């Protein structure tokens, strides 16, 4: 069963004619044999299906009625909080059997009534892949990881020995059997997670935002494999995905949900897009380029403030920063950053891009004085002075004036039990009491669209809200340099626009911003782009130059 490489990216970049439901049919022979499944793939049938989690008054899903024929690809679209993941869990039998709540209506996968069938039986038919690779991989070694699901289902040893390499080959990880799962890149880990669920040959494959945590190359790899799996027509696929540019070409059918978990539309992609472009825009969903031709809507680029001529006053100078991490057995080390030099000017926004593991976070840590470089120097300017201070030696409060850093997981930074308190916790740095009713706190909450949540516990917010809260808390201090790891991650279009608008306001005040990001929407909103690859700076130039000649791949999703 040879998996031939396919020119999948070309397909995604293709024109409108390829976005029809039958697209997979004329792409030539299936790359994988039917051997990959047990029998016919199941259909999905929902009739007025709904679900309410225990302790919630509002249903997570309500009134879903749709049919997916065997072997078809269903794309589920909706804003955050629309119950997409709940639908995925129901298709895998986790709802209602592993999570408490109340069920209504009818949902069938093949000939199984999900509500009346034990989870074990449903999960035997359905493979589900979650967002985060790191919290779904169980075993330390790759082949053990793939075998884990087979062992659980009582496969014989010889059958497992034969199936594990097959499943790895399906996702392009042939030969990875004895590698350590922790040492794989994010994209490889997510492909491994797909191999895990493909191994027991489920008829239905459910992917819950499988590329949300991946960099563009990792995301490409996953979609390339999904294209192959979809065109083989040997499995029914349900894909939940924000990045519609990549996912839409795969879909035969689209299910559109609204913020209340109700079904807004169901049908072939072209039809749904034509009929519901306005709702989509109102929902704040990210409208991909491919839709413009249908909807003649606004071009979906985050509108940047007209970039001011950056004042050539350097506020941060990094000179040949090298960071080595000691590694395991041989007492050797790994170079995470190799002689990276970087200058940030006041009022300048720089995007820091590069694949997972290219050293972006390490650079942010080094610039923030949190990790001492093995060699090289980092200097920052204090109170409009020359850039001659070592951030690692600045006392806490002075440092907070100079540098703000928002982590990828904002939850880790939370210190208070309400959102207002959380923002107010930044005030003592300015020499003011941490008063939640301070006008600056109220304004920051309003600016980031969080005023309705002022009294909520930060830990109960959605991921996108937590991200906005994290940036809001940092913005109150207004440090002269702001470092943000993935500012628009997990944000839909409206949330991303709100964040960029606030970053614009801070930049107008002379703040220098360095944004580590995988989000191509953000690039045009930046003055400069610095690209890292395996710890080296391989590009430092204007955003326009970067978009014209992306250093990673000619037709990659950076062009968005």
């Amino acid at each position, binding site marked *: 069963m040879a998996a031939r490489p396919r020119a999948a990216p070309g397909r995604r970049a293709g024109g409108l004619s390829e976005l029809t439901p039958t697209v997979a049919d004329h792409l030539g022979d299936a790359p994988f044999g039917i051997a990959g499944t047990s029998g016919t793939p199941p259909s999905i049938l929902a009739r007025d299906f709904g679900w309410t989690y225990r302790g919630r008054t509002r249903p997570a899903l309500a009134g879903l009625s749709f049919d997916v024929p065997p072997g078809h690809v269903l794309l589920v679209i909706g804003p955050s909080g629309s119950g997409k993941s709940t639908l995925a869990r129901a298709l895998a039998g*986790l709802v209602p059997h592993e999570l408490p709540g109340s069920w209504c209506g009818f949902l069938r996968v093949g000939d199984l009534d999900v509500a009346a069938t034990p989870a074990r039986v449903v999960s035997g038919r359905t493979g589900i892949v979650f967002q985060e690779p790191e919290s779904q991989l169980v075993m330390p070694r790759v082949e053990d990881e793939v075998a884990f699901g087979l062992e659980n289902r009582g496969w014989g040893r010889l059958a497992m020995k034969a199936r594990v390499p097959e499943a790895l080959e399906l996702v392009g990880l042939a030969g990875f059997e004895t590698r350590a799962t922790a040492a794989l890149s994010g994209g490889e880990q997510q492909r491994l997670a797909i191999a895990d669920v493909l191994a027991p040959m489920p008829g239905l494959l459910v992917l819950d935002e499988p590329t949300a945590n991946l960099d563009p190359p990792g995301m490409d790899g996953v979609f390339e494999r999904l294209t192959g799996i979809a065109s083989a027509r040997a499995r029914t696929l349900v894909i939940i995905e924000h990045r519609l540019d990549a996912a839409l070409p795969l879909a035969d059918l689209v299910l559109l949900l609204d913020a209340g978990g109700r079904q807004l539309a169901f049908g072939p992609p072209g039809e749904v897009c034509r009929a519901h472009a306005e709702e989509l825009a109102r929902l704040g969903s990210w409208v991909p380029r491919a839709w413009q031709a249908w909807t003649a809507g606004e071009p979906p680029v985050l509108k940047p403030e007209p970039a001011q001529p950056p004042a050539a006053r350097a506020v941060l100078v990094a000179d040949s920063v090298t960071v080595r991490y000691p590694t395991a057995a041989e007492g050797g080390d790994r170079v995470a950053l190799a002689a990276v030099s970087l200058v940030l000017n006041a009022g300048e926004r720089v995007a820091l891009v590069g694949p997972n593991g290219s050293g972006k976070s390490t650079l942010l840590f080094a610039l923030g004085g949190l990790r001492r470089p093995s060699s090289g120097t980092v200097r920052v300017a204090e109170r409009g002075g020359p850039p001659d201070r070592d951030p690692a030696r600045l006392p806490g409060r002075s440092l907070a004036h100079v540098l703000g850093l928002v982590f990828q997981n904002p939850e880790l930074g939370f210190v208070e039990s309400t959102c207002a308190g959380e923002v107010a916790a930044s005030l003592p740095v300015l020499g003011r009491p941490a008063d939640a009713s301070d006008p600056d706190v109220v304004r920051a909450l309003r600016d980031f669209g969080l005023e309705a949540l002022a009294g909520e516990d930060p830990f109960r917010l959605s991921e996108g809200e937590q991200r906005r809260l994290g940036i809001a808390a940092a913005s109150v201090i207004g440090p002269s340099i702001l470092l943000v790891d993935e500012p628009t991650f997990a944000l839909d279009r409206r949330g991303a626009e709100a964040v960029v608008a606030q970053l614009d306001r801070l930049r107008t005040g002379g703040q220098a911003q360095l944004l580590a990001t995988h989000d191509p929407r953000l690039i045009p909103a930046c003055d400069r782009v610095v690209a890292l690859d395996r710890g080296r700076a391989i590009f430092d130039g204007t955003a326009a130059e970067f978009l014209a000649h992306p250093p990673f791949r000619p037709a990659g999703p950076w062009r968005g």
Partner: protein
Amino acid sequence: MSFLPAPLEPIRPALLTRVAPVTRLVVGIAWLGVAVVAAGPAVPMVLAVAGVGSLVLLSGLPLQRVPGRLAPLGLAALGLGLLTVLVNPANGDPAARVAMAAGPLRVTETALWAGATIALRLAVIALVSLLAFATSDPTRLADSLVQQWRVPYRFAYGTLAALRIVPLLAADWTAIGTVRRLRGIEPRGVLGRVGAFGRRLMVLLVSAVRRAERMALAMDARGFDGDQPRGVFRPVSLGWLDAAVLAAGLAIAMAALAVGMR
């Protein structure tokens, strides 16, 4: 980014890496039992020598990294040993034979033997844990426990999954501290510091529970909660080598006891 020390693992195949983990566990437990129960330093002495010998010849571990790994326990052994020697009721016994005396310090032979016993026992514990656990990866240990000792697989492989989360939590802990420093949040006074530590721990706990929940859901979705018989991908068999290691290990324990009896 790794904030935890790299695991100490075998770098070449060796006798001990080839036997089943449960075999090493049985021998290890026997050695520990004998070392702790027997009076006097002779028994743990013999076992410590045998342990160092096995470590050098049979473990396949990178020897240059062993001292670093054993240093904390080694220091503890020395410290406890010294403490036992110096602060010992026997030192005040006028009838006891004096081994050393310097000024007011009077160390009896009884105290010296007691200190040596304590230190050597701790050394045996450290060596045995290294020989029993570091010589195979955790996966093989879990496999062996499930297959040979019928340990419930939910427990064994659930622990394995939890082990994967530990380095992530270590990274979280560091991140929580650094975010706070960058936000200029500096607790004042002892109470403030204790409170800040508690809140930091709380955030870590929230993060740990989230990760564990997601992991559990992913595992259940892959059939981990099933009650059907589980397949075996990595059989761990017991062979003549295990019998030999078991016999040799128990023989060493008996020999140590015999030496101690004299």
